[in-house]
């Protein structure tokens, strides 16, 4: 599903965000990319959905070399995956439902199908009673769940989650992780970037630990 071959990413001359990353994530896996802040987790995820280009190295996603992907190939690549952003990236002046509708509009899904899908996903994340509210009126955990529902709108084969429990308390974090585990159980490949090593240890999934842009540990 995802392969990194000697991937380097630097910003300017001084900042090395990723150094010689080689990894292989199989289809259907649930993988944690763990490490402290500034370890390169977000950069790694951004390389996968072609928000960034590596300084050198090759990256295959679903058999496609995203480094050599032409401009017009980026939108289809992103439409094949779901991304949960650390800062949620919700439109604050729109209702929760409209935030999800944005995806089906971009994907050209008929409105009736899109609305049904949005309603089902909001039910899945336990927010069907708040679909007309704006994100302002939701708690951090609820906003996170909206972001998860939005990432699932296009039935992605790959779900990337950047610090999905970053601002949540222990209970809410557990809820979100349970939700991601459910999604994984349905066959979706899930890659979660997190700094929460306790949670990672507890959940016992495959974990790749980054530090200073390098893979320092990998288990099991």
């Amino acid at each position, binding site marked *: 599903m995802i392969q990194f071959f000697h991937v380097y990413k630097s910003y300017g001359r001084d900042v090395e965000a990723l150094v010689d990353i080689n990894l292989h994530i199989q289809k259907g896996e649930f993988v944690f990319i763990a490490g402290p802040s500034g370890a390169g987790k977000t950069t790694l995820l951004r390389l996968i*959905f072609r928000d960034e280009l590596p300084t050198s190295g090759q990256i295959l996603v679903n058999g496609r070399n995203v480094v050599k992907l032409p401009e017009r190939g980026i939108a289809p690549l*992103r*439409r*094949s995956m779901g991304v949960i952003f650390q800062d949620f990236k919700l439109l604050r002046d729109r209702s929760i439902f409209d935030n999800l509708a944005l995806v089906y*509009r971009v994907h050209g899904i008929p409105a009736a199908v899109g609305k049904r899908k949005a309603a089902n996903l909001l039910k899945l994340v336990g927010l069907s009673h708040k679909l007309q509210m704006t994100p302002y009126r939701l708690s951090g955990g609820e906003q996170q769940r909206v972001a998860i529902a939005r990432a699932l709108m*296009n039935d992605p084969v790959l779900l990337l989650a950047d610090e999905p429990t970053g601002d949540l308390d222990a209970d809410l974090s557990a809820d979100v992780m349970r939700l991601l585990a459910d999604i994984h159980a349905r066959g979706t490949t899930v890659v979660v970037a997190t700094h929460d090593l306790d949670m990672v240890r507890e959940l016992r999934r495959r974990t790749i630990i980054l530090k200073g842009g390098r893979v320092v540990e990998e288990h099991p």
Partner: protein
Amino acid sequence: MERLRYILQDALVNIRRSGWSGLASIATIAFSFVIVGIFLIITRNLGAMVSEWKEQFQVTVFLEDGITPEQLTLLRKRIQSERAVKSMTYTSKEEALQSFKRELRGQESLLEGLGENPIPASLQLRIYEAYQTPEALRQFTASLTRLEGVEDVQYGQEWVDRLSAAVRMLRLLGLTVGLALGLASLLIVSNTIRLAVYARAEEIEIMRLVGATRLHIRAPFLLEGMIQGGLGAAAALVLLFGAYRATLWQLQLTPGQIFGMGVGSFLDPRWAAGMLLAGAGVGAFGSMISVGRLLRA
């Protein structure tokens, strides 16, 4: 199909949200097109007037008093054979005098005491437009002057030439002013769209991240620009038509009566359609500049 519907919906939402800046943009385009339209209407009517005059343009060949009927017949045949001559009318001395008297109605006494009829007989020649150039006319009239029985040759080409030059000048001025105002409209539409793009920067960013194509992001803004431009041009046409009808009413004329020459018409429908298209084009181009610049950034 769904995508197209969403794009159209987004464009309409954009227009609604653009509020006063959108209205200012439409008003600027309308103002520019009103000015351009005024020039178009004036040049169209002056052009029609010149054509009409060219159509009616004639060379008058005054004949010597002593010309014999045989000489006159020969002269008419000779002139009729000229390629420049479309048609020819003969006016005898008597007819010319009668006509002059009609023109002096009420002041016939001025002619008393003249004794012999002083007005010469003449031939009025209608000339094909191709031969109405100053050089061709100079050569043609010079050759007529040399003919036997011809006293003098007169024509008012100079006046028509001046009017043609004025129309050309007006067209050029209209084009220059039109281009300048078109450019101003382009900048204003481009600015309005830029504001709209900035206002929706977050949404555009999210759309990009969830897989929107560049076309999907650009298309609503392009449509917005086109609709604004088209609305501006349409408003200009409505204003121009209103002003045109009001002018006719004020002058108590019906269309086509101005100058008594079958002119005084509004814009040709093709020109009006062209203005609408140009408005939409200006709007689309203006928004393309802004969105392109911001998406690259």
